[in-house]
C-alpha cells in the first residue's frame, strides 16, 4: 500500500466499516421466517467487487478531466433523472417509487445515486470558477439551481431521502467554498419557516428573531427584504402545501413527532426500530441473535433499517463502535479535503464528505427517531448496488485527492 501511495487511514476505516457492514448485513439475513434479506450479503459482496473495480478505474482518472466534463456528467444525470420519472420502475423496498432505470427488463441502477456525484462535480466546478466566495444571496442562486434541479426531480420520484442529500451536499460545499455561515442561515431560513408555520407562536418568534438577525448581519436591503418576504410566504403556504402532500408523507411527518399516533401503520417503522434498538441494552442480544430481527418485526432490516439490527444484537457498545468508525472516517475525509492540491479536488473531497454525512446522520438519526423516516441507505451497511457503487466511486475520488496531495509533497504550513 505504501508503494501505491494510497491514504492508509482512509483504507483502514473503509475496510473496517465494510467488514462491519457486511457482518451486520449477514446477520440481517439470519431470520426465523423467510425474508428478502436472506442472501443479501452475497449479492452485496458481489457489488463490493464491482465497486472495487469502479474505484480503481476512477482513481486513475485525472481530476482535470472531471473538472472539464463536469457539465456533461451533470447534464447526463439530469437527463437520466427525467427519463426515470417518465419510465422508471420501483423495486425492492422502494417498490412504490419510480427510482429505477430499467432497460429491457434489466434494472440498470438508480440514477439518483449517480446524480449525487454529478452534483458534487458541477458544484465544485462552479464554485472554483467564480473565484470569490459567494457573499450575497445572488451569488448562491446558481449553486442552488445546480443542486435544486436534481433535488426537485428526485423529490418527484418521490424519494425525499435522496433529495435531502442534494441539500446536504449544497450546504457543505458552499461552506467549504468560504460562504459566511450567516448567509447559509439566511438561505435555510425559508425552510425553517415552512416547518415552524404549523405552530403560529413558534413562527412568530422566529420571524422576530429573523428580523433581528437581518439587522445584525446587514445584507443588502433588497436581499433582506427578499429573505423576509420568502419567510412570510413560506409561513403562508405551509398549510396548503401540507394539504397537498400524499397521505403517507403526512403520516410519516406526523409519526415522526409522535410514533404512537398510528402504531400499526405509519408509526410501525419508528416504533419497531426503537424497540429493537432499545431492547439491545448495553451489550445487545448477541450477534445473529436479535429476536426482533429474527422474527421480522424490524421492517427493511437489510436496507434502510439495518442499524437497529446492529443496535439490537451488539447493544450500545456496538453502536458506539460503529459511530466512532464513522466519525473517524469523516475526520479522514476532512483531512483529505483540507490537504487537497487544488480547490476543485478539495471541494470534491468535501462534497463526498457532505454526501456521506447526510446519509449517515439521516439514516442513523431516523432509526433513533431523531429524524423523520425517509428511505435513505446507510453507507457500508445497507444493501443496495447503486449506492454501494457510488460509495466506492466516491472513495476512489477521495483516494485520488489524497494521492495527488501526497505526490505533490503536501506540507503543513
Amino acid at each position: 500500500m505504501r508503494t501505491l501511495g494510497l491514504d492508509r487511514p482512509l483504507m483502514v476505516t473503509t475496510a473496517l466499516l465494510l467488514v462491519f457492514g457486511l457482518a451486520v448485513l449477514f446477520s440481517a439475513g439470519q431470520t426465523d421466517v423467510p425474508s428478502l434479506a436472506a442472501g443479501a450479503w452475497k449479492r452485496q459482496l458481489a457489488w463490493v467487487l464491482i465497486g472495487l473495480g469502479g474505484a480503481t478505474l476512477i482513481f486513475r482518472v485525472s481530476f482535470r478531466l472531471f473538472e472539464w466534463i463536469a457539465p456533461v456528467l451533470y447534464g447526463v444525470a439530469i437527463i437520466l433523472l427525467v427519463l426515470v420519472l417518465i419510465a422508471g420502475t420501483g423495486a425492492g423496498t422502494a417498490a412504490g417509487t419510480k427510482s429505477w432505470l430499467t432497460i429491457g427488463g434489466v434494472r440498470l441502477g438508480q440514477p439518483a445515486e449517480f446524480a449525487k456525484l454529478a452534483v458534487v462535480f458541477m458544484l465544485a466546478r462552479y464554485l472554483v470558477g467564480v473565484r470569490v466566495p459567494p457573499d450575497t444571496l445572488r451569488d448562491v442562486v446558481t449553486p442552488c439551481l445546480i443542486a435544486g434541479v436534481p433535488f426537485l426531480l428526485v423529490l418527484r420520484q418521490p424519494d425525499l431521502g435522496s433529495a435531502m442529500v442534494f441539500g446536504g451536499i449544497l450546504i457543505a460545499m458552499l461552506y467549504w467554498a468560504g460562504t459566511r455561515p450567516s448567509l447559509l442561515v439566511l438561505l435555510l431560513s425559508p425552510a425553517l419557516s415552512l416547518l415552524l408555520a404549523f405552530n403560529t407562536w413558534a413562527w412568530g418568534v422566529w420571524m422576530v428573531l429573523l428580523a433581528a438577525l437581518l439587522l445584525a448581519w446587514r445584507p443588502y436591503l433588497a436581499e433582506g427584504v427578499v429573505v423576509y418576504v420568502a419567510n412570510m410566504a413560506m409561513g403562508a403556504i405551509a398549510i396548503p402545501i401540507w394539504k397537498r402532500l400524499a397521505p403517507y408523507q403526512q403520516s410519516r411527518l406526523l409519526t415522526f413527532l409522535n410514533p404512537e399516533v398510528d402504531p400499526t401503520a405509519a408509526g410501525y417503522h419508528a416504533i419497531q426500530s426503537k424497540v429493537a434498538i432499545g431492547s439491545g441494552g448495553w451489550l445487545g442480544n448477541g450477534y445473529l441473535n436479535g429476536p426482533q430481527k429474527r422474527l421480522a418485526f424490524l421492517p427493511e432490516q437489510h436496507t434502510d433499517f439495518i442499524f437497529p439490527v446492529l443496535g439490537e444484537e451488539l447493544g450500545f457498545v456496538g453502536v458506539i463502535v460503529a459511530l466512532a468508525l464513522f466519525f473517524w472516517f469523516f475526520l479522514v475525509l476532512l483531512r483529505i479535503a483540507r490537504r487537497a492540491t487544488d480547490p476543485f479536488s478539495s471541494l470534491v473531497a468535501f462534497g463526498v464528505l457532505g454526501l456521506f454525512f447526510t446519509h449517515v446522520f439521516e439514516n442513523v438519526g431516523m432509526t433513533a427517531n431523531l429524524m423523520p423516516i425517509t428511505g435513505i441507505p446507510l453507507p457500508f451497511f445497507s444493501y443496495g448496488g447503486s449506492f454501494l457503487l457510488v460509495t466506492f466511486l466516491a472513495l476512489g475520488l477521495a483516494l485520488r485527492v489524497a494521492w495527488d496531495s501526497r505526490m505533490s509533497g503536501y506540507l503543513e504550513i
Partner: protein
Amino acid sequence: MNQFHSYRLRERARVVQWVLAVAFVVLVGAFFRLQVIEHERFRLRAEHNRVRPVPLTPPRGLILDRHGRVIAENVPGYAVKLLAPSEDSLRAVLLRVGQIVELTPDIIDQVLKRFRRAPHMPALLVGDASFEVVSRLEEHRPLVPGLVIESEPKRYYPLGPVVAHVIGFVGEVSDQDLERDRFPGARMGTLVGRTGLEAQYDNVLRGRPGVRYIEVSAAGQLVREEGVAAPVLPVSGKPIRTTIDLDLQEYVDSLWQADARGVRGGLVALTPTGQVLALYSVPSFDPNAFIGGISAQEWRALRGDSSYPLINRVIQARYPPASPFKLAIAAMGLKKGLVAYNTTMPQPCRGGLQLGNRFFRCWKREGHGRLNLIGAIERSCDVYFYQLGVRLGINAILGEGTAMGFRERSGIDLSNELNPIFPPSTAYFDRVYGPRGWSRPGAEFNFAIGQGENTQTLINMAKFYQALAGNGTAVRPYLVAAAPGGQHNLGLSREDLAVLRRAMIAVVATGTAAGSRQSDIAVAGKTGTAQNAHGDDHGWFVGFGPAEEPEIIVGAIMEFAEHGSTVAPYVVKAIRRYLLGPQAAPSQTAGLLALEAPQDSAPRAVSISRDSVVVAPPALPPESTYAPAPLVPRR
C-alpha cells in the same frame, strides 16, 4: 483563490470538526437514552411483541358419588386454536383450514368473534377436536401458520343423561358473566359450570389455569413453542364427593326407561338427614354434548323441545301437591288438637259434599262411608278432608303451611330452584279475586285436598315427607354440603307422627297404593293425582321405607300419569332397591287385592297452565357455549 489558502481551510476544518463532533454526540446521546435509560421499557415491549401467552386449562375436579364412583371426570382432548396478526390474515388462514376440514360460516363467525375479543391470544377454533381432525391439521401445518394444537383435559360424564340434571354441564364463560364477575377468577375462554353441581361448586371444581409462552413472528406465525419462557403449570380443581348413590340413580333410570318410557317426570330420594341419594328428571339430555361446544342444531333442538329436557323437574317445575298435601292438613289438625287418629267427621262420605249450591265430589263416586283420620288418609277420602279443612279454617291452613315451609324453596345446593306458590294470607285472595270474588269454604275445600293456589316443587314435597319420616323436623336437602338454616319443625308430637305413619303404611298396605305392596318391605307413603286442566292428570307418590325405621324418602311425579297409584310401584321399587341392594330377589307385589284407582277430585279444576308447571325456563347457557357442528375432515 484566497479562500482556499491552507490557513483558511484549516480554520474551516476546525469548525467542521466541531459540527461533526456535536452531531455524533447528539446521535450517541439518542442511543444512550434508548439503549441504557429506556432499555427496560423497550425490552418489555420487545417481549410483548414476540411472546404470546397460551392459557393452559386445568383439569376440573372430579365429581364422585357417595361411594366414590365417578360421576364426572376428565379425558384427554384436543383444542385447536389459531394465532393471527390481524382479522384479515385470520380469514385467509380459515379459508385454508376450510380446505382441510369442513368449516361452516357459523364456525368462522365464532372464531372471528373470539379473535376480536382477544386478538393477542390464540383464537379457539374448536374446543374438542377429534383425533382425525387433529392429525389432518397437523399434516398440513405448513399451510396453516399460527396453528396451535393444545392437549387439554376434556370433561366427560360417563353416565351422560342419567345424571344430567344433577351435575349440569360446563361451557365457556360468557361476556355478561365476566362483566358481573359471576365466576371470580374466570377469564375469557375459561370453562365454567353452567348448571347443576358444575355451576354450584364451580369455584371448587375449576382449579387455576396455567400459562405457557410461545414465540411468534411479526406475521403472527408460530415460530417456537418450547423454551420461550418458563410455563406456569395449571392447578387442577378439587374433587367433590356428593351424596348421590350412583347405583340407585342408575336403577331409577333403568326402571323409568323400562316401565315408563316416554313419561315425563322426576324422582328424588333423600336420606332422613337430607342427603340426596338420587335426583332424576326425564326427559333428559346428554351433558357430554356440551363439551367443546354444542352444535347449533342440537342446541336449537334442546331448547325448542316442547318437553323441556333442560328443565330439572325436581326443582324447576311446580305441580299442585294434591293428595300428598293431605298429610300436611292432617298434621295441622293433629297439631292444633282438632282431630285424633280415630276422629270421624260429622258427614260421612257419600261421594261428595254439598256446599251452598255446589256439590264437591269425592274421587270415589260411591263414597267411602264414615272414616276416621287413618282411614281417610288410607283411602284418600276428599269428603273427610273438606270437613277437616273447614274445621282448620283457611287462615290456619295458610299460616301453618307457611310455618311448615311450603312457601319457601327447599334450599338444596343446586342453582335455579323455583319458589313454590303458597299464599301467605287471605289477603292474597282479596287481591287476586277481589274481597267478594272468593268464598272462604271454597278455598278451605280446595286447600284441604292440595289443590287451589298451591303449587309445590317435588323436592319441597320430599322435604316435607322427610320431616314426617323422621322426628318432625324438615331439614335442607343437600348434594354436597348442607347450608345452615332452612329447617322447619312441624310441631308434631311423637304420637302424632306415629298416627300419620300408621296411616301412610296403610296407604301402601291396603289403601290407594296397595298395588305396589311388597311382601318383604314395609313402605309408607301417599299417592296423589294433580288436576291438570290441560290434559291427563299428573301422578304423585311420596313415600319412605322401611316404614318404622325410615332410611330413605322418595318422591316422584309423572306428568300425565293420570293417578298416583301408577307412580307408587315405581317409587316402592326404588326404595326396595336402596334398602336391599341389587342382589335382592325380584320384587313381589301383593297384587291379590282389588286395585283401587283413586282419582282425587277438585271442587273446581284449578287451571294449571303449562306456565304454572314450568315457570322459569332453566338457566340457558349463553351463545358461547355452543360451537356450530363438530369439525369433520374433508375427504
